């Protein structure tokens, strides 16, 4: 239902433009940061800061990508196990077939795009519910990764080995052994690029259009199917990029893991203002939302809670975020 009162509509929209929810999320991030810093001296250290970032890159990247299918009103549950699968395959080629590292990385990302394409086709062309499609590809990628590498953990080249340069993509070591988290730069660039794509290109415009009113978009002459597929390709590709971030940070990649990563990414996106029913959302919002989750995940152990608590808290925060969405909508109807 549209807001009947013109002036009320105006104020609401200007608040929206300031990014009401984003602002609140930003406050939460700052609050959490201060809280953890006060509670634990260790948290205040520079090395902790760097390691928080290390553990965040891959989730942030997944979150940027999954924002697109979420905005179409769908979801991509395959990104978590997919990430591990792509990383395993890329690492396997590098370690056992002596493929150059850059080529291995390329394969990793393209594999992600391919699974994204598969998801998109099943959703857009065959009309299968997105959660079901991606639940299946989630399992398939999990099995596939293990089978391809033969069930063993894969180690991408370490920093001192030849080809280890790729680990410096996210973290530079200086001569005095101080780490510089240059991964931030890439994340910021990608966030800016994808923000641009979402807000200023046809791809983004039609992604929102599909989530907002698919039929109206189709009647306006938009090739709805192609753009629907593309949303999943973007999500898959970013899962591939996340796989590289993951490989660069962790020494070995274990087959069979990765389940649950997708929830952190999707949860972050929804906390950051992506509507669970599609149509609304921003890349910067997803970034902020996912930072909340990463902070909780890395901060909780510093105040004596195991990381397991974070799983509970993520689940509850996700439900809470959607509930707020539901309440808002109910109010609008009234």
């Amino acid at each position, binding site marked *: 239902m549209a807001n009947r009162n013109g002036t009320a509509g105006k104020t609401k929209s200007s608040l929206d433009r300031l990014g009401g929810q984003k602002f609140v999320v930003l406050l939460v991030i700052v609050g959490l940061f201060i809280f953890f810093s006060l509670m634990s001296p260790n948290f205040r250290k520079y090395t902790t800061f760097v390691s928080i970032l290390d553990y965040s890159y891959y989730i942030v990247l997944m979150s940027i990508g999954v924002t697109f299918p979420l905005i179409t009103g769908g979801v991509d549950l395959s990104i978590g196990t997919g990430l591990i699968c792509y990383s395993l395959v890329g690492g396997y080629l590098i370690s056992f077939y002596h493929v150059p590292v850059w080529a291995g990385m390329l394969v990793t990302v393209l594999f992600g795009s391919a699974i994204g394409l598969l998801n998109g086709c099943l959703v857009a062309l065959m009309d299968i519910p997105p959660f079901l499609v991606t639940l299946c590809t989630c399992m398939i990628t999990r099995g596939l990764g293990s089978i391809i590498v033969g069930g063993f953990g894969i180690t991408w080249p370490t920093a001192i080995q030849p080809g280890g340069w790729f680990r410096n993509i996210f973290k530079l070591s200086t001569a005095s052994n101080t780490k510089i988290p240059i991964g931030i730069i890439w994340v910021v660039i990608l966030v800016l690029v994808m923000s641009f794509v979402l807000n200023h290109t046809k791809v983004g415009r039609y992604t929102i259009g599909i989530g907002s009113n698919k039929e*109206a978009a189709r009647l306006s*002459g938009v090739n709805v199917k192609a753009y629907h597929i593309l949303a999943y390709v973007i999500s898959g590709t970013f899962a591939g990029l996340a796989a590289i971030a993951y490989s660069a940070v962790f020494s070995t990649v274990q087959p069979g893991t990765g389940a649950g990563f997708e929830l952190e990414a999707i949860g972050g996106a929804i906390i950051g203002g992506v509507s669970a029913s599609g149509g609304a959302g921003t890349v910067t919002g997803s970034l902020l939302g996912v930072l909340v989750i990463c902070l909780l995940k890395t901060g909780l152990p510093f105040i004596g809670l195991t990381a397991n608590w974070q799983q509970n808290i993520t689940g509850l925060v996700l439900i809470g975020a959607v509930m707020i969405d539901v309440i808002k909508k109910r109010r609008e109807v009234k």
Partner: protein
Amino acid sequence: MGEVILTMKGIDKSFPGVHALDHVDLEVRRGEVHALMGENGAGKSTLMKVLTGIYTKDSGTITFEGKEVEFHNTREAQEAGIVIVHQELNMLGHLTVAQNIFIGREFKKGIAIDDKKMNEEAAKLFRRLNIDIDPTETMSNLTVGKQQMCEIAKAISHEAKVIVFDEPSAALTEAEIDELFKIIRDLREQQLGIIYISHRMDEIKVITDRVTVMRDGTYVGTLITSQCTKNDIINMMVGRVIYEDPKTKSMVPEGAPVVLRVENLNAGKMVQNVSFQLHKGEILGFSGLMGAGRTETARAIFGADPKQSGDIYVNGEKVVINSPEDAVKHGIGYLSEDRKRFGIVVQKTIAENTTLATLKEFLNGIFINKKKENQVAQQYVDSLATKTPGVDQLVVNLSGGNQQKVVIAKWLARNSDILIFDEPTRGIDVGAKNEIYKLMNRLASEGKAIIMISSEMTEILRMSDRIVVMCEGKITGELDIAEATQEKIMNLATREIS
């Protein structure tokens, strides 16, 4: 008024079993607002769908700007310059106004969308229309009226030469209608041809230059608006058809008790201060044009939609109805106008549908007594003469009329004393219609009280003991069947509201 821009001549269109358009003519000139009028189902929408390429005509010619044309889809019509502003809005609520207007044909600057240019163009359009809308505003933040203006702007941005307005004022407030008229007059100034479909007589007088009236799929005539009266138009709309056995007097016995009393019911814009009474054994017809608020009233009484205020009395006692559950408890049954969506569960059997509202009575401990269920369902199949091989038949396999009987059986099984029939014969063929009518008469004579919402004048005059007429969410009059005529009803249904 300028030269003729569009001529439709001898347009004929049949659907299986229905002759929807029978050699209809329409002529529109540049710089004119041409009203298209007729009762519900007169064929106005079909004619417009033929014009814009949604339907293909069986015969007849369409001449546009001197050339004979034939459109195969809305796109082709749009490109030629004929656009339609629909009653239901086709908007993407999450996008901005300008983004909506130009969706599917965005301006681009390299790979980026040139939002700045789109905003400028949209602003230009709005200036041309003299509307004050911010092109960067999010669509869902606009009022329905403003959204409609955006649809019009979108239509004009297609370089339209003929614009069809399909009941544009139905959802607008008075002030918004004034604004709409200002825009339409401006468009007329700019020598566009405008076809205006509306039920509101007062609007027709104010805004249009000529009016073409249709009835039952045929062309009745074209009048110059300033030279005719409201009664002239009404007479053309209702015609002089002889209806099958209209009721001449009320069949309700003197002093029948009031079973349902509704007082000052309010629910949104479509139900304003509705009050009426329903007697035992009475068929109360609810007449009015499409969008008069009759279905909304019924749904509010039944608790299907929330209401703001109002009291409902059943058998003299005040009752609280907040959900269909409450309504059913008080013996009210509702047969929706949209059977498939709100009436039946198509993938289930007749027996299962029949007992849906009364399952409790068919329980043996925790088990459903299928034997009893089938027996009762069979009983209703027999007494309502539902045509089916058996009660275990899936409802999806039944015809419309028989599906309706299953819904009726559901409420009869519940022993509901108050039945609301919302368009009971929509989409049902003639033979089955008569059966439903007989059934309703029988139910009334057995002491059930019936509210019948119908858009068919024949049905109203044939079935009702008393008629309530609604217009714009308000009750505008009440007629006893003895004094009711088509003209009187139409007059109330199109009453000017000042």
